[in-house]
């Protein structure tokens, strides 16, 4: 399906990442957003608030992030594509409803413009330290999808992809920006609506009475949806439930539901992951990076090549699910992995798990506040190559 032209600001713009993300959401068909002000993410909803009245839709500034993150779920069950936007402290509050969205399989997008933490931390400066929180932050077992854009253009392009993935898999999808990407201004090309592919919600074809909200058909792991007001009289609960959506307080129901909540992303991991590779085959050292750090790492990789090191670069565009399979494959030939990230070592744990001792793994941590100095990453590459 093609994008609704009313939401598409076709043209060539000089725009920052926050504003580009808003345009991405509108192009994706988001017509309901709720948010609470928090630096450095606020510009996304400020623009949404200004744009949505002429596109057709609603923005509401809620009383806090607890409210924002569940108001959008009401919006989703009313039939719309929905989004909320936040940063670290707000993300912590939203964890309650990440779990609700996971268990009720409510498609929604949560934009996280990462800043330094813990707690209030560095409100105006970057970090990539929420990577594990978005994967594991709400209690219980479930799966999510996360994307890591590295430029304003990607804030537009990949946010559309984020909405599409939310609809396809019915999971909360996290859009892991950071302060640098959010506030960096670059050229953003917004194509014609007819060139933008958007995924429509998977609506049921069944009639009221026949339809069971959490029944999967045709071997799919993702049930089809209806919306409130269509006569289906659905029941949706955050309790463990059966295919009818009714609470089911027993071991079998728990196993069936939770297993599927994990499997629907984990088993389809290879279809979802998106790794951009540069010179990985035959490389001795492989740098694994994501988000803003991938741009800095790119500069270090080139500098290392100029010094004769056979170094490859794997850029994770989709960070969750993690591309364990591909990393494991590369670990058969590469001698070392170098993982720079704006945290004290988060995704490197996943790299280590996938490499499983077949190569050395070197973390290049950074507590946040700015990006890495490319020379620091270069040094790590040179040491790993030795």
């Amino acid at each position, binding site marked *: 399906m093609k994008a609704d032209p009313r939401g598409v600001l076709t043209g*060539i*713009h*000089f725009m*920052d990442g926050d504003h580009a993300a808003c345009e991405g959401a509108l192009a994706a068909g988001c017509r309901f957003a709720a948010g609470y002000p928090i630096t*450095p993410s606020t510009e996304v909803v400020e623009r949404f608030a200004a744009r949505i009245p002429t596109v057709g839709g609603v923005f509401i500034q809620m009383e806090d992030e607890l409210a924002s993150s569940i108001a959008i779920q009401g919006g989703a069950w009313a039939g719309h594509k929905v989004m909320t936007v936040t940063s670290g402290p707000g993300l912590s509050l939203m964890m309650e409803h990440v779990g609700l969205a996971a268990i009720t399989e409510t498609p929604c997008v949560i934009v996280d413009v990462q800043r330094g933490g813990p707690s209030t931390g560095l409100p*105006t400066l970057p970090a990539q330290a929420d990577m594990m929180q978005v994967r594991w932050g709400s209690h219980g077992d479930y799966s999510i999808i996360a994307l890591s854009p590295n430029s304003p253009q990607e804030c537009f392009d990949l946010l559309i992809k984020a909405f599409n993935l939310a609809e396809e898999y019915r999971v909360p999808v996290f859009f892991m920006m950071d*302060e*640098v990407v959010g*506030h*960096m*201004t*670059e*050229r953003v090309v917004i194509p014609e609506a007819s060139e933008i592919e958007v995924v429509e919600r998977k609506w049921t074809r069944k009639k009221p009475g026949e339809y069971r909200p959490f029944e999967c058909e045709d071997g799919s792991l993702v049930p089809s949806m209806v919306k409130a007001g269509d006569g289906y009289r659905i029941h949706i609960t955050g309790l463990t439930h059966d295919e009818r959506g009714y609470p089911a307080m027993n071991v079998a129901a728990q196993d069936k539901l939770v297993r599927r909540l994990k499997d629907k992303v984990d088993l389809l991991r290879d279809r979802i992951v998106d790794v951009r590779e540069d010179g990985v085959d035959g490389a001795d050292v492989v740098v694994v990076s994501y988000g*803003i750090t991938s*741009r*800095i790492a*790119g*500069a270090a990789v080139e500098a290392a090549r100029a010094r004769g090191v056979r170094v490859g670069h794997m850029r994770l565009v989709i960070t969750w699910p993690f591309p364990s399979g591909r990393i494991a494959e590369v670990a058969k030939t590469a001698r070392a992995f170098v993982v720079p990230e704006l945290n004290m070592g988060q995704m490197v744990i996943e790299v280590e798990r996938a490499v499983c001792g077949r190569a050395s793994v070197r973390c290049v941590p950074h507590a946040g506040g*700015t*990006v890495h100095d*490319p020379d620091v990453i270069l040094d790590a590459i040179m040491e790993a190559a030795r």
Partner: protein
Amino acid sequence: MAKTEIRIGGLGGQGVILSGIIIGKAAAIYDGKHSTLIQAFGPEARGSACSAQVTVSDAPIGYPYVKNPDILVVMSRDAFVQFAPTLKDNGLLLYEEELVEPSGLPAGVRAYGVPATRFAEELGRRLVLNIVMVGFFAGVTGLLSYSAMEKAVLASVPRGTEDLNLRAFKRGYEHGQALVARA
């Protein structure tokens, strides 16, 4: 693969960020180059220090920050004191000559001054001093085409002020060209 790193510094309220946006826009939209603008983001009280970093390049830009600019544009004494030591050797300094007195510059730096505030006042609005500065930048550096810069100015200023801003841009531009011709 030419890459030019620019730092613009001044005080909040002088239109420092808008100057960066105009240069970035001229490069990225109208001159077909790559450009990244980073703005120092903080409590933006009027009158406090404010700066923008602009990278202009023929190739995609990786590292987005400007550590050692090729070109430094300063509209306040504080900005000069803070950023002048970071200028590359043989770099270029553009300064508001009634607010900044350059001294102790890195080796080989060429410096050009413009009375941007006075020019702006003569044009009728002190507010357009940043556009005079942008014109001056265009005139001295020749980094971006005149037409790209002009279009970027028109696309960035409030509706109804285009004429005034174009005159400010021209005034700065001509002053810059004249200084370069003399040098």
